[in-house]
């Protein structure tokens, strides 16, 4: 085991830090979920990132990346969040769709889509949840009917809780292509154009007033055969590659929580009357973020040596979501009566409250851990 950064890695870290210091936006960016303007401001910055070759550190150069490995990606993310930069407008395409594209996409799909993701030309939303299906994706009902004459599928139904969908132009979605099928059989992974005829996107205003969230209605929307990712009927398998990334490391890089733990430490330093118990809470939050980082390094070592994330990503999801909620609770406690008017922290707090629910509820994650990691009997459903 070697936990010391190599000279080459350290040099890369300094290069990234230096570039970010000189090129980051002068004013801190609003959340890309807040409004159309906020989304476009983030997108413009992410284009700058792309043009300098920093958008997708671990992707091959031909797809718009920097041609480096996962270690460099993790280092870059640490520097990115430490520089005060937040989650990206393009994160769904970058971190959720791209892993499935790399694993299941045809050469033509990869060549056409990946550079447009890195270059923020296509902005992707995720079409997983439905009114009757969320954490249990096997309940998906949106259906696609075969249209042989046109060479594709006709999609009907409704998706919901789709982050940034009102601002995005494309959607990766799990739909039922076999009407006779049940559960996770007979699903396919479609790449849908949100500007196609028959698509209606309605914004849903969130607690905290952000409108980058929505429900999507399909009325006989045409999707060509070229826009099916993986084989027809194999959507579950393709989606699991995405879901593993989402619940696992990629959506919540350690850098994000290290930066948030550091902000908590800074807040505590500025709170002279913090009690011993509060200082202990802050220290524990900082330790949790470090533990998450080392956990991430362990996972990446396994991936680098040919392993995969697998069901352990569910442990990760439970850990980072509970860590996120707790860090914000500690901050509000330190702020005391100022908590109500400290926009950053209370906003972060109500956003964190959603994390045990989204990306698959923690209840579902615990079932997965019990059954697939610990080998316990299946729960009654």
């Amino acid at each position: 085991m070697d936990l010391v950064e190599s000279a080459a890695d350290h040099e890369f870290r300094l290069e990234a830090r230096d570039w970010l210091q000189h090129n980051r936006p002068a004013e801190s960016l609003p959340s890309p979920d807040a409004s159309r303007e906020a989304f476009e401001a983030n997108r413009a910055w992410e284009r700058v990132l792309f043009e300098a070759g920093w958008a997708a550190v671990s992707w091959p150069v031909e797809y718009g990346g920097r041609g480096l490995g996962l270690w460099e990606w993790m280092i870059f993310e640490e520097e990115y969040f430490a520089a005060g930069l937040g989650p990206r407008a393009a994160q769904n395409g970058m971190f959720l769709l791209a892993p499935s594209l790399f694993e299941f996409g045809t050469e033509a799909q990869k060549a056409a889509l990946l550079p447009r993701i890195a270059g923020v030309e296509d902005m992707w939303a995720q079409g997983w949840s439905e009114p009757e299906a969320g954490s249990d994706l096997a309940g998906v009902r949106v259906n696609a009917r075969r249209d042989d004459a046109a060479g594709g599928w006709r999609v009907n139904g409704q998706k919901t809780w789709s982050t940034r969908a009102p601002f995005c132009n494309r959607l990766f979605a799990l739909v039922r292509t076999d009407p006779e099928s049940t559960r996770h059989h007979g699903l396919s992974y479609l790449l849908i154009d949100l500007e196609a005829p028959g698509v209606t996107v309605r914004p849903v205003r969130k607690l905290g007033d952000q409108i980058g969230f929505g429900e999507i209605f399909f009325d006989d929307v045409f999707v060509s055969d070229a826009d099916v990712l993986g084989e027809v009927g194999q959507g579950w398998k393709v989606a699991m590659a995405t879901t593993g990334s989402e619940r696992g490391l990629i959506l919540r890089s350690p850098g994000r929580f290290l930066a948030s733990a550091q902000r908590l430490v800074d807040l505590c330093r500025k709170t002279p009357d913090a009690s011993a118990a509060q200082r202990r809470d802050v220290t524990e939050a900082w330790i949790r973020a470090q533990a998450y980082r080392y956990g991430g390094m362990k996972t990446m070592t396994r991936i680098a040596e040919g392993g995969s994330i697998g069901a352990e990503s569910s442990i990760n999801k439970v850990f980072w979501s509970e860590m996120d909620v707790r860090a914000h609770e500690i901050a509000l406690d330190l702020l005391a009566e100022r908590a109500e008017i400290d926009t950053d922290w209370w906003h972060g707090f109500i956003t964190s409250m959603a994390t045990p629910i989204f990306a698959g509820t923690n209840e579902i994650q615990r079932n997965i851990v019990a059954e697939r990691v610990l080998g316990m009997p299946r729960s009654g459903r």
Partner: protein
Amino acid sequence: MRFAPTEDQLAFADAIRGFLSRACPAEAVREAWETGTPPAVWKGLGELGLLTLLAPEELGGGGSELELFAAFDEVGRAAAPGPIVETAAVAVPLLARFAPELLTVETVAAGVSATTTAVMPYACSGAGLLLGEELRLVDLADVERPGPALDDSRAVVSLPDDVLRGASVLASGAEAAAAVATARHRA
């Protein structure tokens, strides 16, 4: 001993509940995020006598804390926005005791907020009490409109130093401290 509300106390709470169910539905609470305390709710609670329950009788008071608490249940149920507890349970009895000349119909109509720190809720009220070792009063008329808060209907603002320095002392000493402590517990 009888640890239960009287018929009169229940009737008062019922009146508050009936009024708020008409005047303060969920839509009115949401509107208050943008526009502050709904004037109709404030006026109606005043007319029902809730705000001045603990004032002297000539100002419509003479009630007890028992009526007040039964009514606050209903205020909470409706999530009614406004410095209701601050005015009725804190400001009115403290002003009645230490600065009766300030306790007028106009003062109550404008609302009086209260805080134990420099962070004042309902900054759109006419005045605010600072509950420390001393009892002090700040004029909120010139305080800037608050920025966004977790619950915008509460209009929370961190009072600037010059406003705090300009606060007038209404009462100090052991008697004031004890009364303030009682008010804090009541709120």
